[in-house]
């Protein structure tokens, strides 16, 4: 019996090791390719030890305008995340606290933006933005990212608000606070983890957003993910530089995963599974 348990334990560790390898390999592969010279990248068997080079990064930053893409990504992510929180948090609070007709329909409508095919918004926005001159602008991308993030913010913040007893707001208001100041002074500080989680989520979603950035920008407002397709098509296959761009996109996300994992998990599960 003891031996059997030990064996199961060993097997479990073996499986854990395999899972680790399966999940780290693609990440390691793209990062290592970005530091390889072309002759090191295309070898069989793959080189694990090689002399790292920054040539792909230098080429991508100087020759291909990756710096500009990086700045675009940064501005679009930060501004759209803040805007989504500003719009979504009060709405989430209203959905959590107030009783009114068709409340659940409204909630489902917010969620439906996650369900609709992206082309349904992408095509009209493309045509309209071309007509009114917003095409290829960061403003347009901010707006589209708010559209994506809003449903997440409403979904997540509502579940955080639901976990705070409504008696707390009522006690505040009986003491003479308005709804607004109860929300700002008492409820928001109590739901700080929710705000952090939502912010991180918005930042990640808009930092990674690809589809709208690809169809709605050409040069000026091109973000980092959208720039990936230019390595894929026009200039043939510049694997090294593409891997460099990929690494630059992935690094901030990895930092989030390492240092704010609790918030990412908590955000996902609190929004989904009540614990």
């Amino acid at each position, binding site marked *: 019996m003891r031996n059997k348990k030990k064996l199961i334990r060993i097997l479990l560790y073996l499986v854990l090791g395999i899972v680790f390898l399966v999940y780290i390999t693609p990440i390691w592969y793209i990062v290592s390719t970005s530091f390889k010279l072309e002759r090191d990248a295309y070898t*069989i068997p793959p080189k694990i030890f090689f002399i790292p080079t920054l040539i792909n990064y230098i080429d991508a930053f100087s020759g291909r305008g990756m710096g500009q893409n990086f700045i675009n990504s940064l501005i679009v992510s930060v501004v759209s995340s803040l805007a989504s929180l500003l719009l979504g948090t009060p709405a989430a609070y209203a959905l959590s606290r107030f009783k009114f007709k068709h409340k659940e329909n409204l909630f489902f409508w917010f969620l439906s933006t996650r369900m609709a095919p992206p*082309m349904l918004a992408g095509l009209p926005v493309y045509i309209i933005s071309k007509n009114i001159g917003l095409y290829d602008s960061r403003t347009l991308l901010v707006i589209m990212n708010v559209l994506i993030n809003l449903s997440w913010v409403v979904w997540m913040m509502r579940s955080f608000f639901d976990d705070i007893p409504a008696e707390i707001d009522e006690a505040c208001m*009986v003491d003479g606070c308005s709804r607004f100041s109860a929300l700002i002074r008492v409820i928001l500080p109590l739901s700080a983890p929710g705000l952090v989680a939502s912010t991180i989520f918005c930042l990640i979603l808009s930092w*990674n957003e690809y589809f709208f950035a690809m169809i709605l920008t050409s040069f000026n407002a091109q973000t980092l993910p959208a720039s990936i397709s230019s390595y894929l098509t026009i200039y043939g296959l510049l694997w090294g530089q593409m891997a460099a761009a990929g690494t630059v*996109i992935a690094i901030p996300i990895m930092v989030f995963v390492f240092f704010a994992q609790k918030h990412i*998990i908590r955000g996902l599960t609190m929004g989904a599974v009540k614990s």
Partner: protein
Amino acid sequence: MSTVATTKKKKILVKDRHYRVMFLAPAIAALVLFTIYPLLYSIKISLFKWNMTVPGSGDQFIGLGNYINVLQDAEFWHALWITVSFTFFSVIFCMIVGVALAFLMFQNLKGANIVRTFVIAAMVIAPIIVGTAWRLMYNPGWGLINYFLSVIGISGNPFLAQSSTVLPALIVVDVWQWSPLVMIIVLAALQGLSPEVYESAEIDGASWWQTFFHITLPLLKPALLLALLIRTMDAFRTFDTIYAMTGGGPGRSSENLNILMYNTGFEFFKVSKTASMAVISLIVITAICTFLVKLFQKNEGTVL
């Protein structure tokens, strides 16, 4: 005293009506502007014969012509079939792998935390990068996957370049990327289960499998259904990874609805046809999700 409290409460309720509007209006305005308006605009252009490369074609009203056209179009049905089968297999395998991962992470193994971090990273890294990384790995010449296969004596395959293997190859990537989501949801549910249930099962002499199928799985049902719902919605609208790895090819063998719409709209500029496909696609996914939500509410009742 109590009357003072009730009048205060009444006042609060009256004021709440204003706050309700104030809190909801901005978000609803944004949603109307960016969901309802584009939807109506899409429906409008779907009723014309607009091709951006043909001047003046935007004025030709053809009613439901595009819809009839699309529904008679073999390409559309093919893409719908690809979308549905991709979604079906990807979701099934995501559920199985995700539940297995959740149980693995639940075993208090040393080092599980660091493994979990990398597992979670898979779904947080940009899908376009995930697609790019796997495209590198699938490369028939120098990719890692064919190298490993050659080590164990299987000759290399251009997995992404032959129509028989491209869909399974893409599903593998999707499962790799999104099983972690199922894992997270199920793991949270597992941690929420009370240990007493297991203790009594053990006392009753239930085997591990009996406990798993008769106690754990039913208790996890709400979490599983939620994961199923989210995964179905997301798998149905997969674009980034497929676009990065195959662009819909070889030929049309991995062209799902989103890729087909992108090609029709932004490669061939058949705007009206694209719009009508988008509307049909919305109807299909709404039907699927409504069914799943109904199923969900029947079993859970409260969430959503």
